[in-house]
């Protein structure tokens, strides 16, 4: 069997891609998907380390993360719909009224 280092490295790469998507894209939908990728990357790390330690806690944590991700996606998309109705845009740089 493999040691978990490769999985952890993969997790880091996925997380970095997600982060890049969040900071580099303007489309709110894609930003939300990038967040999902970041959460998945974390899950990979949890599972990799958990299984290599023979511990079920990693799976439990990943399960919780998934729950949170589902809730986040539901609420986030609801907000997106509300905003789109109001502003007719999904450009994050235009949703900048919350300043000075």
């Amino acid at each position, binding site marked *: 069997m493999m040691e*978990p280092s*490769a999985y952890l490295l993969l997790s880091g790469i996925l*997380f970095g*891609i997600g982060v890049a998507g969040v900071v580099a894209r303007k489309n709110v939908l894609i930003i939300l*998907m990038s967040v999902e990728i970041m959460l998945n990357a974390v*899950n990979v790390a949890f599972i990799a380390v958990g*299984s290599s330690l023979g511990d079920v806690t990693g799976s439990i944590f990943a399960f919780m993360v998934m729950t*949170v991700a589902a809730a986040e*996606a539901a609420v986030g*998309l609801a907000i997106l719909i509300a905003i789109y109705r109001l502003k007719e845009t999904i450009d994050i740089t235009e949703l900048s009224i919350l300043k000075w």
Partner: protein
Amino acid sequence: MEPALFIVFGAIAVGGAIMVVTRRHPMASALYLILTLFAVAGLFVLRQAHFLAAIQVIVYAGAVVVLFVFVIMLINVPEDKLPVERVTGMRFLGVVVAGLLILESALIVRRSGMAGTPAADSGSVEAVGRALFTDYLLAFELTSVLLLAAVIGAIALAKKKI
């Protein structure tokens, strides 16, 4: 066997993720996201986390991404109204820093050097189910409250007239 499958699934996951963040139209991103999620589910299977792999497919690919697709089609942003992505200093810096983050995580992984093999039942449905309904019962029940809150929140937010 595992290293080969790891490389395959890992490559699909990374490639899919890159496609997700680089596609212009969100529908394409959503489809690539499904691909990535499936690949990650495959990785879970490789680590003997069968339960997680199952709900990864069911919940993520089956529910969350469907939700995304549903929203994309619901609001149906016309092609010309999609945000115009332009490379600015900020964005470039963001990508560079994200690369730095990957580099840092690679460094950490190289230093830690974890060893060990997966226990046969550490991620099985039975083991996870037992743990969920015994040690983590309270947390598990609380997730239902969280999901309920999310449902109510989503309805309240997306309603036409609040």
